[in-house]
């Protein structure tokens, strides 16, 4: 999972044909439709990669 749009695993169903209405929240807090530590970490890794300071997420 390099980008938020990439599915974290086969359980992610978000697609143009079947868009997930929780997609935006899922990027930061997900996964929301299933429980998985690796899937959670994959999202956190994207956030950490881009967060250049502690204030970055304090929007």
């Amino acid at each position, binding site marked *: 999972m390099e*980008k*938020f*749009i990439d599915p974290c695993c086969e359980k992610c169903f*978000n*697609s*143009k044909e*079947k*868009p*997930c*209405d929780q*997609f*935006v*929240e899922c*990027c*930061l807090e997900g996964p929301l439709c299933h429980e998985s530590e690796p899937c959670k970490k994959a999202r956190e*890794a*994207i*956030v*950490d*990669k*881009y*967060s*250049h*300071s*502690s204030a*970055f*997420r304090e*929007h």
Partner: protein
Amino acid sequence: MYERHILICAGTGCISSGALDIQNVLIDELKKHGLEDKVRIIMSGCHGFCEKGPIFIVYPEDVFYCEVKAEDVPEIVEEYLVKGNMVERLLYKDPVSEETVISHDKIMFYSKQKRLALRNCGVIDPENIDEYIIRGGYIGLKKALQMEPMEVVNEVKSSGLRGRGGAGFPTGMKWQFGNSSPGVKKYVVCNADEGDPGAFMDRSILEGDPHAVLEGMLIAGQAINSDEGYIYVRSEYPLAIKRLRTAIGQAEKYGILGENILGFGFNFKIKIKEGAGAFVCGEETALLSSIEGKRGVPRHRPPFPAVKGLWGKPTIINNVETLANVPIIMRSGAEEFASVGTEGSKGTKVFALTGKVNNTGLVEVPMGISIREVVFDIGGGIRYGKKFKAAQIGGPSGGCIPDEHLDLPIDFDSLTAAGAMMGSGGLVVVDEDTCMVDMARYFLNFTKKESCGQCIPCRLGTTQMYNILEDITEGRGKPEDIDLLEELATAVKKGSMCGLGQTAPNPILTTLRYFRDEYEAHVIEKRCPALVCKALLKYSIDPEKCIGCQRCIKACPVDAISGEKKEPHIIDQDICTRCAACFEACPKKVLAVQVVSEGLPEMKELAVSKEGK
């Protein structure tokens, strides 16, 4: 996981000053030191402090290097990134205290600002949608999609947001008109036709945070039941257009633009229309004509665009900065947004601060801040210790505010009461060396040329006003011209069809209101107190000071100066074109050339040495 992040400002200004060269050298240097996997380079949008660009910030420490050149990069990498030694010479030095400041948030230019519309500019990579999402992006859209359209309208109404493009019309009310207008097809238009000379607020937002504008448009679409939007942006903004196109492509890929957005059954597409650069196309009905492929001239209102706009369909038109504020309102709530600002003007305003201040650039301040704070705290005061004379707020359609109103709060109503206007956000500071009559002439020249010519008051009125101002600044002014100018300005303001003509006289009316004595000096005494208007100046050489070095003779392009070596020189006033070449050429230690504005014989001669000037 990176150890460090380096943000290089990649706004148009810093790119012009070599930001891309800095990036290339940095890539090479990081490789050379084996740091390419430890340090991430982010080419961000505008940081605002254009005076000090290119800007180079190292995180997480927040070390602010400024005026960086490509040749400085090896030193930054070697000394700071590798050895941990600060590169002192590239740090910011406060112009008043002369103290070195390391972190950008400790710099006065930034510390008094409140960045809402510019929240992501200079913070994220504008070409990376993931960074926008991490910063809370598209949460506001999600909330809007969960609400009924009128609930969205009411939220924006409650926030007190007023249009940032000029007139300050309440955004929520405009959306309400759009919502209640009958019709299946409606449009949302983003007015990105930023035309004021020196203004670059909208360009910076588009370049630095394009998704914020897209999100604002999507929320507007939900509010008025529209499925299509246009961004009208001038073609002179190629970087903004490129980043907008990238952002639109990403949003479509992410299911945030297009069909069935985020699974809510809401459809919305956004198209970009490049404008040719006519100032009048910033007027909303002219803009609509231009999108339709017609000549960009205003239409009569009513009907207003919210009722009959693009291709005859209900259309709401919002400025870039206005739309960039909308996601914050939806995400954080109207109440929080309304907690910033004054009773009648909520939130913040972005200004392009330019002119005779030490710190020029893009600033975002809470509504209600005083002009003094903007000029002296954020702007760092007047250059070379000169005296503040006035602030021209609102660009060529705005008005000037003199020093006695320095404590005037910056909000829509206070500025209007003072004869100026918020406008789109141009803020030009002028000092004692600026002639206010000449400044009014300068702005009139702009609006005269940009008048579309459709209505008589504007077409002929701006030309006549300009001609009178030209007469006054060239020494042909008559005493009755002042009253005539005032009468004409009032008539053009009242009689013009669109905002261009209605506001074009503002620079005249405010300079007449606050600096009438300068007009009188020009027409009655035939002198320019600020020593600007060439026709009213005379250059002369003080024979007591002249050392006969002949530098002025060599510099004079029209051979108006004569004199033997080591003998005092003389300027032939009949030949002199008042180009000031002699004034510039005279050695600083000598200062024999003087510029004077004599006025009538009985007037005391006003002479200023080179030092004084």
